[in-house]
């Protein structure tokens, strides 16, 4: 059994699986159940001055029969009194002293208000703070959440206030609704944050009911943009995590959030630079019980590779992401079709024909059937056919030797410069 213990900027937990600040961490009852199920830590639903929520708050994005490939929400922070939350936090901590409980905070942009909130919350034995600079709707209209997260100067300033007052590590949670995530992350680091977490939800409108023209979800016929999350946002989150992981000016640990549902997702976040992960949508979809498989799958993966501790893989593939100009132009792959696995749906043919490079032929066989045959000379190795093929591993992308040494665009441009 590999050592799954994780440590994010001094906050220890028995495994790297945390629940993100969201409906699953709304109450002591839920957090107790989550800890019983095996979650290593939780970030409590954001505390602050209690708000009033609207009903009709979430909407799911379905792809064909797959429910909730993403969701969005127009829910705000906790709608329960601070005292109630704090006494439940204390109870949970007493019952599960080995787990991490981080308090998520949101406050108006005033020093005293933030200091007061920090003071009150750390009276209970929490393990850290997470500053919610990410909530993209409602709170941002009131100058909080993403309204702070989109201004690096405000991030740095508020972070400083909290770090000054705090006895425990401070994480800054970032909004993805910015053009370059490294700027807010650097500001958090400047302000003294011990870690950053990302991503919060992405501005989104889930849809419009084509019958009634009501937005989805709607509140009495109207809606506001919501926050988008779930499996479909994972690629965006991975990119932002990796951008920060590779940026020397950020330089602090990262808690990865966005679309985590399987142990493979966890491994990907860790490899690209996250120290742990936080989960929301997957639990909203399936319940706390998914953590068992996260742990089991991650364990078997690490054991099979002889990796002793989860910390060893953090950032393992971070530097495999580079700029396009560094990619090897002489690396060539082509599609190869396993005729015995092919079920003759012709999806690869029409994809390549209409949207790639017209290099799959339907070749009539003596028996009357057709074989799908790749013209390897013209195949550009784009992968599209293998992406649309319904049969796993039927189309393999294989490397062919170009006989030329590796050369990037940067190198080629430089070489051409020498010649020219």
């Amino acid at each position: 059994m590999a050592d799954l213990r994780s440590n994010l900027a001094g906050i220890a937990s028995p495994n790297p699986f945390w629940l993100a600040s969201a409906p699953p961490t709304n109450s002591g009852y839920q957090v107790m159940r989550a800890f019983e199920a095996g979650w290593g830590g939780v970030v409590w639903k954001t505390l602050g001055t209690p708000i009033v929520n609207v009903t009709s708050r979430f909407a799911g994005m379905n792809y064909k029969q797959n429910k909730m490939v993403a969701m969005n929400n127009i829910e705000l922070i906790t709608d329960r009194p601070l005292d109630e939350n704090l006494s439940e936090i204390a109870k949970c901590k007493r019952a599960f002293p080995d787990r991490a409980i981080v308090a998520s905070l949101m406050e108006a942009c005033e020093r005293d208000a933030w200091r007061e909130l920090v003071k009150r919350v750390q009276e209970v034995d929490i393990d850290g703070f997470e500053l919610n600079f990410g909530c993209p709707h409602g709170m941002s209209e009131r100058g909080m959440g993403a309204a702070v997260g989109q201004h690096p100067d405000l991030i740095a300033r508020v972070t400083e206030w909290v770090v000054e007052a705090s006895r425990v590590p401070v994480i800054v949670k970032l909004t993805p609704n910015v053009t370059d995530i490294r700027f807010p992350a650097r500001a958090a680091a400047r302000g003294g944050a011990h870690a950053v977490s990302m991503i919060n939800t992405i501005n989104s409108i889930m849809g419009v009911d084509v019958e009634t023209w009501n937005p989805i979800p709607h509140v009495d016929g109207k809606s506001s943009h919501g926050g988008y999350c779930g499996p479909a946002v994972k690629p965006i989150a991975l990119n932002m995590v990796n951008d920060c992981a590779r940026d020397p000016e950020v330089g602090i640990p990262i808690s990865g959030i966005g679309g985590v549902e399987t142990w493979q997702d966890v491994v990907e976040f860790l490899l690209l630079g996250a120290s742990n992960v936080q989960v929301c949508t997957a639990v909203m979809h399936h319940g706390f019980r998914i953590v068992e498989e996260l742990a089991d799958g991650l364990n078997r993966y690490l054991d099979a590779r002889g990796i002793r501790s989860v910390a060893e893989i953090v950032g393992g593939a971070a530097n495999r992401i580079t700029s396009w100009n560094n990619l090897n132009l002489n690396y060539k792959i082509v599609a190869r079709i396993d005729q015995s696995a092919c079920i003759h749906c012709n999806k690869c043919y029409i994809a390549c024909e209409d949207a790639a490079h017209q290099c799959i032929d339907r070749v009539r066989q003596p028996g009357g059937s057709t074989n799908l045959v790749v013209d390897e000379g013209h195949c550009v190795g784009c992968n599209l056919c293998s992406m649309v093929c319904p049969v796993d591993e039927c189309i393999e992308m294989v490397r062919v030797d170009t006989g030329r040494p590796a050369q990037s665009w940067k190198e080629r441009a430089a070489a051409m410069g020498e010649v020219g």
Partner: protein
Amino acid sequence: MAAPVPSLGEPFHRPLTHLEVKLEANRCLYCYDAPCMNACPTHIDVASFIAKIAAGNLAGSARVIMDANPMGASCARVCPTDQLCEGACVYRKDDTPIRIGDLQRYAVDAAMRDGTRLFEAGAPTGHTVAIVGGGPAGLSAARDLRRMGHAVTIFEAREMLGGLNTYGIVPFRLPIETALWEAEQVVELGAEVRTNVRVGRDLAMDALLAEYDAVVLACGMGGVPQIGIPGEDLAGVWDALEFIEQAKLGRDVGALGSRIAVIGAGNTAIDALTCSRRIARQASGGGEARVTMYYRRGERQMSAYGFEYDFAKQEGIEFRFFCAPARILGEGGRVKAIEFVRTRLETSEGGEAAVPVSGTEFVEPIDTVVRAIGQSRLVETFDRLGIAHDGGVVRVDESLQTTRPGVYAAGDCIFAKGTREAMVVEAAEQGKRAARSIDTYLRGGA
């Protein structure tokens, strides 16, 4: 529409639930140049109609289906899909083909329920076409000819349109309402209908050709022939088609008794078996009725489809193979028993023949006998119409034209006994083809 008729109990096949439809429609891969489409005799664009179901466009889906197949509603229920579209589905390899027939039924049923108008007649061409027989072949030809703008008159010997779809296929597999809805689609396009007219008897071919620019012969086949054994004239001996028709129209078939013998092993036999068992059970208030199929060859030689055979087994039918009826025994003018003789298969140059084994005769007590040994050919009709035929199978060329110029033929009347049974979907496709040929003929001749 006719008065409601009894469905004789549970449908053979229940419709899919909405959830099943969603799952199934989304499972379809939307193949390109899809094998299912190529396996359908009418070439319904299956991938397209299923994608439309998945997208919630049921009216559009029904149009795709009915455009290719004017009998799309009945075909959804009676096509041997295992041998056709579903047999070719790419998922066949894993034995989980898309349930194409059921999805087709879902889409067409919605159009039927909503009264969606799917097609319009074409601009009038001034040409007139007579259709002889308002079954699947005749209706399909009429539908497409109307869409092309030709004036169409359907001459139908019976009271209602639909042919065997209306009168011949048991109601729990194909309700009469479905058959009549399809006919109604054609009538709504402006096809004129003359029912109770038997061409050849009430109207001569020359009279037709004098009045119409072209003719489609789509008169199907005849009743079930005599077996050719003593006792066939006894009360209690039925022609399967007449029997099913009576049942389908809700008419009394009288007391069937508790032992029913059906002679034959094709799809008419299966329908007669299941139908008579349901009627006998209903008549006896759910009591037991022994309904037995007697066939002179073996299980492997049955021409009924696998799904039909399975259905008959589920319905509690018994099967006796390798025995042929020698004579029907009566008492007081009514059937009392059948004497059978055992047979064995002998291979000769003509194939396998069932030959009786002498000394193996045995007598089974029987109350009702249903002859279901296939359908006879309308030899006399074609002779009278002056149409060349081979033993009652109308002779046609590639374009489906008969030996008389301007006279085309489609459906069961050109069906030569081959590898498979006559099918509604083939009749529909031939009706379409005849319409196309006539269109070319008329426009060329104009």
